[in-house]
């Protein structure tokens, strides 16, 4: 169990920067997910924590010790790799016990702990087999077994589920979450999958171009994104972005979209710090900010008569695309609320929940 503190971390490969000044403070027992598009530096950051890459600048502390110059083996961490990285020339049993043997634990103790880890993951039957005789999901279980058997103070996961098919991925994701609940050790998990990030994390650290774009609880990032990038990265289907202009007059805040033909009154509760009259902005609408109109529209809700262009049913819900001031917008509706393309439908848009970004800086107002 350990707190992880990263201060002013830089890592560059030759002249190419991969991580550019990251500060993180991860509490003991926290499940932190580093997420971002490929090339954002999340894997590099994880590998510097593991000690597999040297730090160019800054410090990494694990459990109060600065580990910058410590070898990976002395950091008391375990890591699960994207390609599982099982030793193909060893049986599952030896794979799991390898780290304990390398640390010179007595063989009976190794056997006991391997057995316990295998039971925990339901892989006892595979112990005498070789990795090549296992399926992808079973291999990933062995890789996790190899990590938990050592009882380290910190777990690192480097995109552990990305080689699995969708169905297995859902199952393993739940198991990793359960594992964290059971053993309560600090975990840092790298993924490019926003669903994994949302479902697993106590805290999401969203990275872009080697810096932290925003960090916080999953719902906080989802509902109050700091930038357009964060808003666009989290959520599926993506948030729709509509260019518009703020009108700040007569004590009332309004938003004109497109060529100015559509004017939306913004709710009072929407505090827009430093918003100037005539400022160019982006209105961000998530699919779930819209519903089919029922009864009277509530506070901060705008009713719009939409013509549905495209319907994508998912079973329980349907994604309906329509145009708002010339821009395509996706709304998530009840499956039976929408029929076929071309249908006219009154849509309620909840502007209380919508995000508004400065069109220039793309930061939330």
């Amino acid at each position, binding site marked *: 169990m350990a707190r992880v503190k990263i201060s002013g971390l830089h890592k560059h490969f030759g002249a190419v920067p991969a991580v550019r000044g990251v500060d993180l403070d991860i509490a003991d027992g926290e499940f932190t997910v580093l997420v971002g598009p490929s090339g954002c530096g999340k894997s590099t950051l994880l*590998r510097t924590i*593991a*000690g*597999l890459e040297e730090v160019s600048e800054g410090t990494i502390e694990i459990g109060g010790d600065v580990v910058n110059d410590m*070898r*990976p*083996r002395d950091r008391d*961490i*375990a*890591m699960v*790799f*994207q*390609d*599982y*990285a*099982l*030793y*193909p*020339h060893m049986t599952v049993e030896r794979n799991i016990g*390898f*780290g*304990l043997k*390398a*640390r010179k634990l007595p063989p009976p103790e190794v056997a006991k702990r391997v057995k316990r880890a295998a039971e925990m993951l339901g892989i006892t039957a595979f112990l005498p087999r070789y*990795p*090549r005789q296992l399926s*992808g999901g079973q*291999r990933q279980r062995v890789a996790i077994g*190899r990590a938990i058997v*050592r009882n380290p103070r910190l777990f*690192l996961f480097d995109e552990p589920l990305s*080689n699995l098919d969708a169905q297995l991925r859902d199952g393993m994701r739940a198991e990793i979450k359960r594992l964290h609940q059971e053993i309560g050790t600090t975990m840092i998990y790298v993924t490019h999958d926003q669903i994994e990030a949302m479902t697993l994390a106590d805290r999401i650290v969203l990275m872009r171009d080697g810096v932290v774009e925003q960090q916080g609880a999953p719902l906080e990032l989802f509902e109050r994104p700091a930038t357009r990038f964060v808003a666009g990265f989290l959520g599926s289907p993506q948030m729709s972005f509509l260019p518009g202009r703020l009108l700040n007059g007569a004590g009332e805040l309004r938003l004109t979209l497109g060529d100015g033909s559509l004017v939306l009154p913004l709710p009072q509760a929407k505090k827009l710090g430093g918003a100037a009259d005539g400022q160019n902005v982006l209105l961000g609408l998530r699919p779930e900010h819209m519903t089919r109109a029922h009864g009277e529209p509530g506070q901060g809700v705008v009713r719009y008569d939409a013509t549905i262009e495209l319907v994508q049913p998912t079973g329980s819900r349907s994604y309906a695309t329509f145009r708002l001031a010339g821009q395509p917008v996706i709304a998530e509706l009840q499956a039976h609320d929408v029929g076929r393309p071309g249908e006219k439908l009154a849509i309620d848009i909840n502007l209380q929940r919508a995000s508004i970004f400065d069109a220039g800086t793309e930061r939330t107002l």
Partner: protein
Amino acid sequence: MGGATKRWRVRSEAGRMLFIGIYLLFVLIPLYWMFITSIKPSDDYLAVPPVWFPSQPTLVHYNAALFAYRGLTGLMNSIVVSLSATALSAFFGTLMAYSFARFNTGGRHLSFWVLSQRFLPPIAVVLPIFLIYRTFGLHDTRFGLIIAYTVFTLPVSVWMMFAYFRQMPKSMEDAALVDGCTRWQAFWQVAVPLAAPGIVAAAVFAFIACWTEFFFALILTSRYAFTLPTVFRAFLGFQGAQYGEASALAIASLVPSIALGVLAQRHLVRGLTLGAVRG
């Protein structure tokens, strides 16, 4: 339709067998002829019509080749020198290749410099080496020959294994490092076993190069450390060609090669099936 397919299959199978049969004859007849010559009395060598099986087989050529011509000494020298040089070449080659592949030691130039050692024709260096060896007392010693062969096989060993290590995923060694290994342990316990097929392949090449080497053996040895290929030289003397002795020694020299081939093949196949752990 089904009948036609079946007929076609039978025909293609027959064609395959025919091809394999012809190829087998092509390979086996010279071997058979060599073996037969080694047990023929001298009069039957070039008899017309050819003698396909001698009526009175004899081991006299083996006796002469192995003892009178000291073929056995040459064979032992060849085995000791080739195996030692192969082992050294594989050992240092593995270390060097790993260092190039994982740490980019010496940048792009050092690894190329290693390979460039082979650009020089051997004849250009044999005279200085001969003089150096004579000065240091390495001339006509197995040790001297082992050093020379190690140096000459090293560039190819390094490059074969360099290519092998480069395509090997790093993550297993990373896992070993995190698991609790030192770099050295991760190298021996994870990287080397995984690279075994590459190491064996490079070693087989090195062994073949040493086993068949003639030129350096001829110049750098004389009465004690001479190797098998140089013994054959004696069979083409002023008395004419000693076909029986030459064949006998050739047969004897096949034994270690075949043993090594079987061993290496088993290891190569085992190594290949160990691969493919991804996905």
